[in-house]
């Protein structure tokens, strides 16, 4: 198994979370052992800082071209001691912590990062920007720093591919009325996850920007989700992680800390989810049905002075409500990754209207794609929680294993075939094939069909000017016969 990870470290977005719903298990307890197992398993090769840039071939015979960016640290020598990042003089915004703290130009994301080998961020490292600094190389006890590393291109053979590229989160600066980026202590949910995390900037202590403990926190649901102006779909996990926040706040700051959920509809449909909702009610979490219209710091009463005020219509009371609070957490939408169009092109994946990858069949084949042997799982094909993602991943792994252990695949009988005596090699078929199943053979200059890739859609046959391309077992002649047979009674009647 080749594991190709775009970031320098594996674990994805889950590694940034502190706790999971609905049982409040620590994410790290589930994730870290599995990341270690993957790293230590001799049958798994991890390509970090890597991307697949080209995929050719077909089910059972794929060839993937992987580009690996230089880590600038020799993985065979580094022992992960940390001397280098302690010495590095460059402070950079930490993407892993969403800018809530800085990291160095040579860094690991956290103490649990896998591989536990630092990477040099060449955009910011002074050796690469100014050519001056080599502090890390000076202190490295194993002489592992390697500024000379270059980008590598690796080609691997694979029988199947599993796409698990994940999602991005919505940055709500466009929703100006919520004040994110303008008002202190208005945080997005990914930012608040880092505040909650033991390995985060506050070591899991819930504090405001000035270091004080908040006495009240408002959680705003559906920021960007279920909204025609941004993302019309429901992001599915926000209700539950919002409840998770509420319960963790109550646990860590005590029952006197006020927590308000400002929601449109509570969607707690999974196993144990409704119970979790009830537990949150039991914890004393307040639920206000109404979408926040504005977060402001302009006070109207004594109690509001120096605080944030969440303004909404409480649609249950049928009145406007102003909630004075110290912190506002915006539960932001999950959206398709920015690179999803290019990944889709590489793997020939379809995308649905919302931009996520398209399943082969929404009910009957939820992990398959239109390309045989390529599967897509998790949030790259739509928002879902960890449990659903793992269910899909397990399914795709089983499908891949089944294919490999069987060693052969059954093809559909209807595929394109070329009458080589007629074919002029014009390439009209190649131009319209969505599956890259037809190409003009470099030697014969005639069209050649790869039957393992062909889906029998017939586009090439329709586009062939000389009718050399036909669908096997599905030719126009056969069709006329079928129609004649089916309409024979009527034909006789007409006569």
């Amino acid at each position, binding site marked *: 198994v080749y594991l190709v990870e775009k970031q320098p470290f594996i674990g994805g977005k889950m590694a940034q979370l502190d706790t999971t719903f609905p049982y409040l298990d620590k994410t790290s307890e589930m994730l870290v052992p599995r990341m270690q197992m993957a790293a230590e398993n001799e049958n798994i090769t991890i390509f970090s800082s890597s991307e697949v840039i080209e995929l050719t071939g077909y089910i059972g015979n794929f060839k993937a071209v992987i580009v690996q960016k230089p880590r600038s640290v020799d993985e065979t020598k580094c022992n992960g001691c940390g001397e280098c990042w302690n010495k590095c003089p460059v402070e950079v915004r930490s993407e892993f912590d969403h800018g809530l703290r800085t990291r160095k130009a040579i860094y690991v994301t956290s103490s649990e990062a896998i591989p536990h080998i630092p990477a040099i961020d060449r955009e910011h490292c002074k050796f690469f920007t100014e050519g001056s600094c080599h502090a890390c190389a000076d202190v490295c006890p194993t002489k592992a720093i390697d500024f000379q590393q270059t980008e590598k291109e690796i080609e691997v053979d694979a029988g199947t591919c599993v796409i698990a590229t994940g999602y991005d989160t919505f940055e709500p600066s466009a929703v100006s009325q919520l004040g994110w980026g303008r008002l202190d202590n208005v945080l997005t949910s990914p930012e608040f996850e880092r505040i909650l995390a033991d390995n985060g900037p506050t070591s899991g202590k819930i504090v405001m920007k000035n270091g004080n403990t908040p006495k009240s926190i408002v959680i705003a649901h559906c920021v960007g989700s279920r909204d025609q*102006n941004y993302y019309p779909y429901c992001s599915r996990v926000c209700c539950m992680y919002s409840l998770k926040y509420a319960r963790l706040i109550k646990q860590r700051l005590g029952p006197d800390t006020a927590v308000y959920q400002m929601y449109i509809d509570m969607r707690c449909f999974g196993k144990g989810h409704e119970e979790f909702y009830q537990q949150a009610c039991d914890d004393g979490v307040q639920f206000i049905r109404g979408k926040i219209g504005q977060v402001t710091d302009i006070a109207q009463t004594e109690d509001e002075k120096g605080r944030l005020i969440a303004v909404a219509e409480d649609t249950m009371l049928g009145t406007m409500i102003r909630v004075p609070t110290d912190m506002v957490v915006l539960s932001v939408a999950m959206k398709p990754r920015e690179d999803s169009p290019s990944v889709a092109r590489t793997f020939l994946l379809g995308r649905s209207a919302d931009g996520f990858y398209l399943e082969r069949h929404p009910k009957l084949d939820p992990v398959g794609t239109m390309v045989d042997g390529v599967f897509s799982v998790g949030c790259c094909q739509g928002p879902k929680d960890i449990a659903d993602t793992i269910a899909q991943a397990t399914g795709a792994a089983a499908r891949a294993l089944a294919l490999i252990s069987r060693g052969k695949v059954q093809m559909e009988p209807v595929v394109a075939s070329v009458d080589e005596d007629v074919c002029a090699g014009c390439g009209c078929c190649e131009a319209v094939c969505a599956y890259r199943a037809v190409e003009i053979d470099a030697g014969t200059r005639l069209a050649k069909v790869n039957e393992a890739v062909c889906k029998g859609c017939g586009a090439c046959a329709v586009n062939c000017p000389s009718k050399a391309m036909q669908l096997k077992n599905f030719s126009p002649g056969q069709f006329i016969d079928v129609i004649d047979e089916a309409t024979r009674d009527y034909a006789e009647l007409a006569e």
Partner: protein
Amino acid sequence: MSEPNAVAPFQDAIDIIKEEGGEICKLCYQCGTCTATCPWNLVRSFMVRKTIHQSQLGLPDFESDDMWLCVTCKWCVDRCPRGVEIIDVWRSLRRAIVEMGIGNAPDALRISSKNIAATGNPQGEDRSKRPAWAPEAGVEPFKKGMDVLYFNCCYNSYDPKLVRVARATASVLKKTGINFGILGEEQSCCGESVREAGSEELFQSLVQANTEALTGAGATTILVSSPHCYHTFLNEYPDFKGKFEIVHTTQYLARLIKEGKLTFNKEIKRRVTVHDSCYLGRHNNVYDEPRFVLQSIPGVELVEMANYGKDSLCCGGGGGRIWQETKKGERFSDMRIQQAIDAGANVLATACPYCTANFDDSVISMDKSNILEVREITELVAEAL
């Protein structure tokens, strides 16, 4: 036993709302964003969401004041997560009242509609008086072949305070050598506001009258002072697309400046803040031109108010509210004057006759005319030439 306070959905009213163009209310999922966005809730209670839900079930209270509050400022529509055209829903409710006689329209609205029907302007002034301001300003009736037909709003034609805007526009056009004229008595109210107030039939007759008059005159470019004329000509008059070029004065001035046809000789050393009118801004996305024109005037320092651009605060004059009295303490224009003062401006620049009229009133009733001046942008341009 039946529940004494229970209601039942009322299909007839559902059908009427649908017929009058408010069917889109069915998309609403009751999040309350509209209520929380609506500027009325800064000064009084107005449960927009509740009326939308009542409309879904055919149970709106046609007798309620709420029917006449909506200023059609479009703030809620722009933020609605479900794409509900809330203004269309309100218009449908008002049509049901005005045209089908369900409930009563406020007296002020009835009088304005009657005036428009009789004389072509809401003030009820004689048609012959519409061009009364023109001779003194040296403005002639439009003749075929002229560059521009200046379609002046009823307010800028008849209102003794606002006619200054018409004079300023004329003087700028004359100084830049633009060949222009006016329709004069032939012109009728554009009908935008009366339509929002529910009088669809009257609006349609105004569409016909103006279309005939403008086509007959042989106009190609129509210059308007009012964003309400601009909006309805551009988006609601069915035969105008492709036939006439509709330009608002701020757009036209910006164009003249960019083409080098308009140069300023005088300085205006003032701190100016610009009020984005709903119908130029949110309705038609014109935000840059007014600022560009003001910034081109030497000496002008531009400052922004707390609410500007797509989050601008309505003056309170849209949707037929211009003809109705709004109680002191509930006037958006008063809040806006305060915002302008808080922004440190000494001039509040406008580009809409309704806004100008409302701010003129507010600045006097709040006794702030010594620190804040309300000026239409064209006036400032005329002054700086």
